[in-house]
C-alpha cells in the first residue's frame, strides 16, 4: 500500500515509500526529521505548519505527502543556507518578532511569499497575508515591524548584484 514519491525538499531530491494518508507535515518531520515545521492545530487554522510548495505558502497539515510528489518544498531549514541568515530571519530577531518561537517558521515563510509578490507591502497587506498564521505571544506588532524591515533589507539587497544572488536563493 506504499506509494513511492519524490519530493524536492530544500533543493534536495527525496524519494520515499509513504502511506497514501501520510500528511506532508509528518513526511517532513518524521521521515526527513525536518522539525522546524510545527503542528499547532490540525485544522488549517494556525499556520504553524506552513511551508512553501512551489513558492506558495501551504499548510502542510492539510496536504498529503503524495500530493507533493514531483514538487519543490521549502522549509525553514533552507532559509539560512550557507550560514547567512535570510533577511526575514534577521528582521524577526532584530524587531523581536518572536517569543516562544513555535509560530515563527510558518510566519517567516508566509512573509517571504508575500514579499516576493509585493516587495513593498502596506501594513494592511502584511496583516492580511499573515491572517492565516496565529501567534499567541507577540500580538503581531513586532511581526509586522519585522516584515516591513525585511522588505527594506531585501529591496536594498536586490539593488546589489551579489546580494541579489543571495535573495534569489530564498
Amino acid at each position: 500500500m506504499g506509494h513511492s514519491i519524490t519530493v524536492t525538499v530544500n533543493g534536495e531530491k527525496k524519494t520515499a515509500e509513504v502511506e497514501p494518508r501520510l500528511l506532508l507535515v509528518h513526511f517532513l518531520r518524521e521521515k526527513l526529521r525536518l522539525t522546524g515545521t510545527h503542528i499547532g492545530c490540525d485544522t488549517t487554522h494556525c499556520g504553524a505548519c506552513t511551508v512553501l510548495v512551489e513558492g506558495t505558502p501551504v499548510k502542510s497539515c492539510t496536504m498529503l505527502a503524495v500530493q507533493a510528489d514531483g514538487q519543490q518544498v521549502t522549509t525553514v531549514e533552507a532559509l539560512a543556507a550557507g550560514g547567512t541568515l535570510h533577511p526575514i530571519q534577521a528582521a524577526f530577531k532584530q524587531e523581536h518578532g518572536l517569543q516562544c518561537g513555535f509560530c515563527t517558521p510558518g510566519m517567516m515563510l508566509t512573509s517571504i511569499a508575500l514579499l516576493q509578490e509585493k516587495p513593498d507591502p502596506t501594513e494592511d497587506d502584511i496583516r492580511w497575508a499573515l491572517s492565516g498564521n496565529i501567534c499567541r505571544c507577540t500580538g503581531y506588532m513586532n511581526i509586522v515591524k519585522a516584515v516591513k524591515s525585511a522588505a527594506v533589507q531585501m529591496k536594498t539587497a536586490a539593488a546589489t548584484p551579489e546580494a541579489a544572488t543571495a535573495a534569489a536563493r530564498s
Partner: protein
Amino acid sequence: MAVETPLKGNIGDSIRRKEDDRFIRGRGNYLDDIVLPGMLHMAIHRSPFAHARIKSINTEAASAVPGVIAVVTGALLAQHKLAWMPTLSGDTQAVLVTDKVRFQGQEVACVIATDPYVARDAAALIEVDYEVLPAVVSPQNALKPGAPLIRDEKEGQTNNHIYHWEAGDKAKTDEAFSKADRVVKLDTFYPRCHPSPLETCGIVADINSATGHATLYMTSQAPHAHRTLFAIVAGLPEQNIRIISPDIGGGFGNKVPIYPGYVVATAASLLIGKPVKWVEDRSENLISTGFARDFHMSGEMALSNEGRMLGLRVKLLSDNGAFYADAQPTKFKAGLFHIVTGSYDVAAAHVEADGAYTNKAPGGVAYRCSFRVTEASYLIERLVENAAIEMKMDPADIRLKNFIQPDQFPYKSATGFEYDSGNYPKAMQVALDKLGYQELRKEQAEKRKKGELMGIGVASFTEVVGAGPGKQYDIAGLRMFDSAELRVHPTGKAILKLGVKSQGQGHETTFAQIVTEELGIPAADVEVQEGDTDNTPYGLGTYASRSTPVGGAATAMVSRKLREKAKKIAAHLLEASEADIEFDHGKFFVRGSPSKSKTIQDVAFAAYTNLPDGMEAGLEGVTYYDPPNMTYPFGTYLVVVDIDRGTGQVKVRRMVAVDDCGVRINPMVVEGQIHGGLTEGFGIAFMQLITFDEEGNCLGSNFTDYLLPTAWETPRFEMGETVTPSPHHPIGAKGVGESATVGSPAAFVNAVIDAVGHLGITNIDMPVTSDKVWEALNKVGAAE
C-alpha cells in the same frame, strides 16, 4: 546578514534575545521534536458523553491491530493504584475512567503502538458501552437540590458543592453599606476560555527497566514541582526521576497541571520498558486540559454622593468542572481574587466564594494571570465604569478620586494585602495625555448628538504577582520560593541555572542581564539553563508572573553572593584590604584609585589559580529566594471603539497601554510581553469562548469554533510607561508577563459600555460579539 548587539546587556538595555538564534533557524527543540530509539506512541480514546456510566469496555479489536503493543484501561491502572491522581487543589482526578465519565472528552482508555497513525486507528476501535446520565453544565443547576451527583465516588460528598471561602471583614463591610448614599451593582460572568498556547501538551516518558531511572520530557512550566508530584503519585524514588522541559511553545498556565496523558504514558513506559510519546492534538487540548475563568460574579459597591468608594461586597460562584483542579496556592480557594479592591482606597471589603462540580473539563488554571487576579480586576473595573455611568461622573475622574495615593504605600488593603509601591494617578495621566482624552470626549459628545456610538474605555488595574512568601503561599505544600545557581568559569564566562522555566518569555536573555548588572559579565557570556531537574536547583516554576519577582531576585542575590567572594579575591590580587575595595560594572578597584583595577574576568581566573590562603577554590553559588512580599504591577489602559448600530460590530479604533512593572530589565522584551497580553485580553473580550450545550457537548473544541485573534483583527497598540520600583525586590522589578491580560479585558468592555451606557445598557458579558451588542441595542430600540 548578522544581527549584532553592541550593548553589554545591563539592566535597561534592549539587547536582542539569545534564544532567537535557534528559533529563527527552525532549530528549537520542542517536545514533539524528541525521538528516542524504540519509541512507541500513545493515543487516547475519549468519552463522547459528558456524564455516563461505563458498563463495559471491549479492547479486542483495538488490540488486534498490527503494531499495537498494549491497550491501557482504568481497570489496569487500578491494579497499580494509578487510576486516580491528586490535583493541585487537594482533590482527586481520574487518570482513566473506572466507574463513570464526568465530562466530554474524558480519558477512557489508551493505545500504545509502534506508529502514531496506528495508535489512533486502534483507539477508534475501542468499544465502550455507556449508560448515559443527565449532565449538569452550570454551577447554579449543580447546586440545586436533587441535582445529579457528579462525584459519587467521594466519601462524604452528598452534593456538588466543593468549597466555601471568604476574605475581608463582613461586619465592617455591612456597616459601610448601611451608611452608603448609593449602591452600584453588577452581575457578570467571566466565561470559560482556554489559554491555547500554539504548542499543545505532551510527554515522552522513558523509563529504563534495568536501572529504574525515569526520564520524562514534558511540556512543563514547573518541572521541579512536577518531579515531586510524580514521585508521590507514581511511588517512584525522586532521585530516579529526571524531568526535562525542553523548549516550550507557549504556556500561559496551560502547562502547569499534571494531566492524565502524562501519567498513562509514564505507566506504559514502565510496564512495557520502552519510551512512550504522547502529544495531544488541538481538540484534545481544548476539551480536556486546563481551562480558565468560568466565574459568576456579583459585585456591589457602596459610594458616597461625591463618588467616594466606601465598601465592596462580592459573591462568587466558580464552575470547576468535574474535578477541582485549580492551579493555585493551597490556602486560597478562589486564588488571589481578594485583590478585588484593585487600585482603590476602599475601607471595607468582603468576598464570599463557592465552587461547584459540573460535567465539564476540570482546570481553573491561571491563564496568563496570577491566580484569579484577572477575574478580580475585571469585576472592579467594570463596577467602577458602571458607578461612573450611574453617578454621571467621568470614568477617569471617579478613578482619580478613589485611587490609593502615592504617599499611602506600603498600603494595607481591606482584604489583607500589603501593596508594595505605586503611583496610580501618574500612570493614568500619562495614558490620558497620550490618548488625547479630553478631545476624544468632545468628539464623542458630537457623535452622540448625531446618534453615532463611540466609546472610551478606561481600566486602571493593580495586580498581585510573584508568590511567595513561602509561609503564606504554597502549591501542594511546596513553598513558593525560587532559586538560582551561578557558576563563573576560570575564563570569566558563566552558567546560570534556574528553577523557573521560560515558555517564550526570554529568560535566556533577561536573566543573563541581571548577572551582567550585578557582576559585570557581558550577557553574551552568561549561558542560562532551565528545565532539567537533574541540572538546575529546585524551584516552583514559571506562572503567575513569578519568574522575575522570585527567580530574578534569586539571580540578583546569587550574583551578589559571588561578588562578595570576588571582592576578597580582588583585595588579594590588588594587595589591599577588602574594606577598601570598590566595585563598578565589572571592575574591582582600590577606593580612590580606579586606574588600578581587576576585572571580574581577572578575579574569576584567580578563583581557580591564585587564591588567598585558606579560601575555597571556585566562584560558584546557589541562592534560594523566598520573597518578603508579593509585587504589585499596575497601569492604565484606554480603548476607543466605534460601534455600528446596524450590525453591532465593535471596531477598536485605538488602544493606549501605560504599564508600570517597576524596573524594566529589557524594555524590548517587556513591551513584547505587553503586546502579547493585550492581544490575549482583546481575544478574551471579543472572541475566545469555551461553552457547552445542555448535554455537555463542548462547543469550542477546535479553532473554527474557538476564535483566536489574528494579525487582521488585532488592534495596533500605543505604549507608555511609568517606573515605580518595587522597594523589596533586589533590582526593583515587579513582573509583567500577565499585566496586559489582567487589565485589558475590562478596558475593552468598558469602551463598549461607555458607548451604550446612555441608552441604558450597563452590561454585556464577554465575549462581546456583534450579535450580543446588536441584541442589546435592539432591546432598547437603538439598533438599526
